[in-house]
């Protein structure tokens, strides 16, 4: 197990470095320099390029960047917030994005599981149809449509929740974004849970348990859900990543000072360093989540661990 773990971690770190190279090269091909404002003269652009070291050869810039990054320095923002260190920019924003994302995952998983279980238990009844409809709507509509519908109904008409994010009431004002963001997760988890539960419920060991007289909550939780949960953990990882991208739109709509909205602005204004930093953070989170899921999965189901070790050998 230890060997497997070490290997996974090393691979993750290597992946991250390669990603950094790819991101950096990709940005090299981005049209537009960060300084091509109409009011700048050519001489000034050259000066600015020199000031920020953009006139140096690509590989020197890359090594400088990696070196600085290892000491926690992501460079400065060129356009979004002029001359501000990116670490400063991200420091206050990252926790907000992570909090809202975390809330959405939590809400999505819990509600999704419950809906899925209800649908599976009340298989082929009106409840099943109802949850199916909810999950179908959830996967069929873009999250921004939800965001607008929720702000119009719950925020504007009923005035239950604040329409805009405010750092004075971070929880209250994150309710609407959280719900809009979690719709896709709810729907996916519910669908998946339903299928898995139905499969598990039909399996021999459950029939055995039933014939032994085990029933009710005990049967659902100990025997059915537990076995249905294993595959669900695997879909959770891509879903969490999906949330990150969803957050771009949601953060823009609800004026949330998170990193998703920052990324969109950065891409549109060619703020190189900010793009690299955020894309890198996203990738790091993604790889981190994948790693955790892999390890978790190995712990839960030893068969998988063994199979993976074999396949890597």
């Amino acid at each position: 197990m230890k060997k497997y773990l070490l290997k996974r971690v090393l691979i993750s770190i290597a992946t991250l470095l390669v990603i950094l190279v790819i991101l950096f090269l990709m940005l090299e091909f981005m049209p537009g320099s960060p300084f091509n404002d109409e009011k700048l003269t050519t001489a000034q652009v050259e000066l600015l390029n020199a000031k920020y070291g953009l006139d140096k050869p690509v590989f020197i810039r890359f090594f400088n960047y990696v070196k600085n990054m290892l000491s926690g320095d992501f460079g400065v923002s060129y356009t979004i917030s002029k001359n501000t260190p990116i670490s400063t920019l991200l420091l206050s924003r990252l926790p907000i994005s992570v909090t809202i994302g975390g809330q959405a995952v939590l809400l999505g998983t819990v509600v999704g599981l419950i809906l899925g279980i209800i649908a599976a238990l009340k298989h082929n009844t009106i409840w099943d149809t109802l949850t199916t409809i909810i999950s179908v709507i959830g996967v069929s509509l873009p999250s921004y449509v939800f965001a607008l519908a929720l702000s119009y109904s719950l925020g504007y008409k009923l005035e239950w929740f604040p329409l805009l994010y405010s750092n004075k009431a971070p929880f209250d004002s994150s309710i609407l974004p959280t719900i809009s963001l979690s719709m896709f997760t709810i729907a996916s988890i519910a669908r998946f849970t339903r299928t898995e539960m139905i499969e598990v419920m039909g399996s021999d060991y459950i029939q055995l348990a039933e014939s032994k007289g085990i029933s009710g909550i005990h049967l659902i939780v100990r025997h059915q859900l537990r076995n249905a949960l294993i595959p669900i953990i695997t879909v959770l990882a891509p879903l969490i990543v999906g949330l990150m991208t969803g957050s771009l739109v949601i953060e823009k709509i609800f004026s949330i000072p998170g990193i998703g909205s920052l990324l969109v602005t950065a891409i549109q204004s060619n703020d190189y360093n900010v793009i690299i930093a955020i894309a890198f953070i996203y990738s790091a989170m993604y790889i981190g989540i994948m790693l955790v899921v892999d390890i978790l999965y190995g712990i839960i189901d030893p068969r998988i661990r063994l199979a993976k070790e074999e396949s890597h050998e």
Partner: protein
Amino acid sequence: MKKIISLLTVLALLFSLTACGSKEAAPAESSTPAETQTASETATSEEAANILKVQIEVEVASMDPQIATDGTSFEVMGAVTEGLYSVDAAGSPILAMAESVDKSEDGMSYTFHLRDANWSNGTPVTANDFVYAWKRLVDPATASEYSFIAEIAGIKNAAAIISGDVPVDELGAVAEDDKTLVVTLDFPVSYFESLMSFNSFFPVNEAFFTEKGDLFGTSPDTILANGPFKISAYEPAATTIELVKNEDYWDADAVKLDGIEYQVIKEAQQTMLAYQNGDIDVATLAGEQVEQFKADPEFHNIMAGYLWYISPNQTVAGLENVNLRKAIALSYDKAAIANNILKDGSIVADFAVPTLLAAGPDGKDYRETADTYLATDKAKALEYFNTAKAELGVDEFSYTLIVEDTESAQNVAQFIQSEIQTTLPGMTITIETMPKKNRVERMQEGDFELGLTRWGPDYADPMTYLDMWITDSPNNYGFWSNAEYDSIIQSAKNGELALDLIARWEGLKKAEKIVMDEAVILPVYQKGNAVMIKGNVTGIEFHSVGINRIYKNAVKN
């Protein structure tokens, strides 16, 4: 297997938390330590009274006067800092940090006597603060994007310092004593005083700036105020910015607001929902929302300075032909663009210098006495088109129009595309959209055929537009060149015409006529803004040049 059970327990626990969370969170939050409670209470009572809540569409890019380049930064900075001059509601310069001024006869030197005013940390505002700031502005090491404005203002040696030929200390701005600032110019500049209200000329306290170093302008502690308000909450690229009244401001009695709260909202729908909920007092409408609100007494049309036009690249085959350019210019219905598509108070542009930009020596607006050109005329457009076809010996034309990716720009572009193709059979237009930055770069590199672009004025003089089309100007996207035009502009800037204001004004009109007769640019519209202002708010001053909104005299009842 135990692990799965514990995992489940955690899940269940978390679920119970979220389930209760929505109900309990609100009281839990208000029962946090007493200080926060009182703070939020006072905040709410103030909100009800006198805090103006303003929506802005983009984040503030910089609070450093010599670095900032965008309207939003200018607006927020203008609320906390004052230069030598400010502008009144009509846009004329009024004395601010300067208490009085002595102008020399030839208009080549100004002596400013500063009033007794303090920065928000208690140190007095001195002449040296201005000298220091201006030297920063022109110092090549600062790489300020707006350094050219010092050249426009004609401050002695500014041009030479910017190009690095002369040391910074030679700048024609000297602090004679703490309260006397002497500025010498290279040539007389008729709009010098109005330029002095521009952000780039705002003072910076040297001691404070050196102390804060790289952190200058990034938090309430690193921003000094000498204006009507001071910053109480700010961070780089913040979505909310809070200002409170500056009690130490020299004219504090005139300031009626207790504070301003800026809220960044990028989504137009959300903006209006928040406005209708009473979360904001001042909001900008977009697109079709105008239809929904135009009957409202709180609805206002504000003229903005931006001129939108199509720039044809004259190095592209066909577009070097003046008749073809004119054919395109006359072929689209500008009135429909302004009234049916934009609806925000934008007006038809049959000119190269926008209206309400600058008043001439006669006191009248430039446009009042100047002619209009290139008005929409589809029949005439077809005539020009046929002439062009004959001259070029080509029957079919196909051009790509590059456009930035905002909603209004895309809608206008699609309409223009359809109009040109209908009016001029044989002409095909393809639209390519991209972020503004990319469009600007493509145009500067000449890698385009037609580009829908815009220009906002930097100072209140037609020169802010006309200067763009001289030979070799980086903003002369079409690569047009005309010796007569160049000489008029040069002379009006710092030659013979600069000395005679009336002749200069006529010269500028002549220059505009040349640009329009040659269809160097194909004007489309001058931007208007549709703004909602709550009925209890009055006194916000709107300007199309420099600082767009000034809140010093705003009142909220």
